[in-house]
């Protein structure tokens, strides 16, 4: 139970943490979406678009060949063929520009890809995410993805000459825009006044102090009463308490045994084997009661070093 036990995810997300104050005066933490997660979301979205386009193309192609079979003459297919062509052209246009618009304008503010990796679009100033902002951020996709890709794929062949390479570098600036600012905004986000934040969807975990040794202070199995003194509880702070909470919620026997042993060594108890969970539950509840009692009087103890 020391600082290095903090998960790498928590350490990384501390850097991406921003605070927005709501009109009620509550400071709401927002975590800027990781660039890797956003890239993943983009790939998922384009996979969905590509698969839809392929499926619709096959369907229309099949309809079209059926039409030719029926008429028997590819020259004068008339209105039906024309209708298929128009539908196809409009569909391609919508697939390219409409997909992101439609989903991000919805109540979730996220495309299926973003939703899957737990992200959403939000207005940077804390206001509403307006339709204009969604349009603006998505219209810039052309110069951020498609044009740079064209140049990146063609310029190294030397076909475009030095101008091609210059253009590639120029467009790479747009493509890599999000790498160079701390809010991970791409050019479209900058122009629209938006950012992409994590949208965690947590379920409420059970209250820990309602059952077992946490409530009664004694073990269900052995009936031993665990009662800790002031000096024994004073060694740990909030950080250790919350680490202990995670261990109890995860409920992995080997972790519980290891943590129980560490605590016993620290406070000089001699543990009985087989009753570690009850011991930890009781220790957790009494440590938390002590620390929360201190909180009410404005005394906080961040960790064991303070």
């Amino acid at each position, binding site marked *: 139970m020391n600082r290095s036990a903090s998960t790498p995810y928590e350490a990384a997300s501390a850097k991406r943490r921003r605070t927005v104050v709501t009109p009620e005066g*509550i400071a709401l933490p927002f975590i800027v979406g990781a660039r890797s997660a956003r890239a993943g979301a983009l790939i998922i979205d384009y996979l969905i678009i590509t698969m839809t386009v392929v499926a619709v193309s096959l369907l229309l192609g099949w309809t079209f060949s059926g039409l030719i079979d029926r008429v028997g003459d590819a020259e004068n297919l008339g209105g039906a063929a024309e209708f298929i062509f128009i539908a196809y052209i409009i569909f391609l*246009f919508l697939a390219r520009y409409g997909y992101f618009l439609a989903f991000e304008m*919805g*109540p979730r503010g996220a495309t299926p890809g973003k939703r899957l990796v737990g992200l959403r679009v939000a207005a940077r100033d804390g*206001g509403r995410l307006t339709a204009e902002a969604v349009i603006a951020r998505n219209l810039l996709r052309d110069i951020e993805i498609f044009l740079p890709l064209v140049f990146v794929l063609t310029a190294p062949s030397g076909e475009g000459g030095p101008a091609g390479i210059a253009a590639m570098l120029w467009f790479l600036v747009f493509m890599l825009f999000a790498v160079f600012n701390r809010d991970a905004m791409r050019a479209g986000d900058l122009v629209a*006044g938006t950012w992409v934040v994590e*949208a965690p969807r947590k379920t409420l975990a*059970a209250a*820990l*102090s309602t059952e077992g040794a946490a409530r009664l202070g004694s073990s269900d199995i052995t009936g031993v009463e665990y009662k800790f003194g002031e000096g024994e509880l004073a060694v740990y702070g909030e950080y250790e308490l919350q680490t202990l909470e995670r261990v109890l919620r995860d409920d992995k026997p080997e972790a519980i045994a290891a943590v129980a042993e560490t605590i016993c060594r620290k406070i000089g108890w001699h543990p009985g084997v087989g009753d570690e969970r009850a011991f930890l539950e009781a220790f957790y509840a009494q440590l938390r009661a002590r620390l929360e009692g201190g909180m009410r009087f404005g005394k906080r103890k961040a960790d064991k070093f303070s």
Partner: protein
Amino acid sequence: MKAPAIRGWFSKKTVDAPPAIEAAALRSDRFRLEREGDWMRLESILKRMESGRLRGLPDEDVLALPVLYRTAASSLAVARETSLDKATLAYLESLVQRAWFQVYGPRQGFFGWFRGFLGGGLSRSVREIWLDMCIALAAMIAGTVTGYLLVSRDQEWYYRLVPGQFMDSRVPGASREALRQTLAIEESAAGLSTFAASLFSNNAGVCILAFALGFAFGVPSLMLLVHNMAVLGAMWWLYSEAGLTYEFAAWLSVHGTTEMFAILLAGAAGIHIGRSMAFPGARSIMTAAAQSGRRAAQVMAGVVLMLILAAVLEAFPRQLLGTNERFVIGMTMLALWLGYFFAFRRKRVTDDAV
């Protein structure tokens, strides 16, 4: 972050009845158990709102939403000062964040936005970028004149400027008859709607590009405008040499007044972003970019609508009507657009949190 969404999608969640409040040994857990029911109710309302199933939402839930949101927000504020239960705090933070997005989220759907957009939002945005429209117009005129002058000096320029797809019979030295043929009236409407759809798709792509390039301080947008109009200038020279200036103008104006207006607006929108980023004035660059970006996006939505109309005009009236009718339609469209953008003013509605 361990794939929460996937687990949420495939499992039916069963909610256990909360334990009795007295059972909790800690004061902060009792606080939590007392309010848990409200939080759960808020969460279920949010779930339905997020999935867009608003119609099935009973009235009392809609009315309760702001109250429940404030309850949860104040619970969070209290819990932060009294509770060390990390899981509960994390849950409350995510709950309040979700509720905040719904309470302060967009209260209008797509159609509500679209109505406001047509009924004043679009024309207001267009008026607000008037200076950029002047710049774009100057660039377009300069481009046309340059194209005309270049080709009239040296015909080799024609082959450099005009892309291959227009090079059928429209080349320097073509006979007057051959050129007149290219402006001719089609016999039937067959095939024209496909033509319209592909025109639209192509032009919209170009316009979006002109807009997006404005992000680079507007310079590429200007270059794109000048280049495209130089093509027009070159073709104008070609037809005027053959004495077909009037016919060419009519042929062009039927859709050109709408289409070139749209291109003008797209370029102006791009320049607007570039200009406000280069000269943000008293605002920060970020605020300036965001404000102009949203305004320009509204213009761009209008541009796409104008291009749909232009493609229809280009495919049907242009190909089916005679010279004078083409002129009349073209000028009528121009007058309509100018009237809509500059004469149609509605009092500013107070929805401007933008």
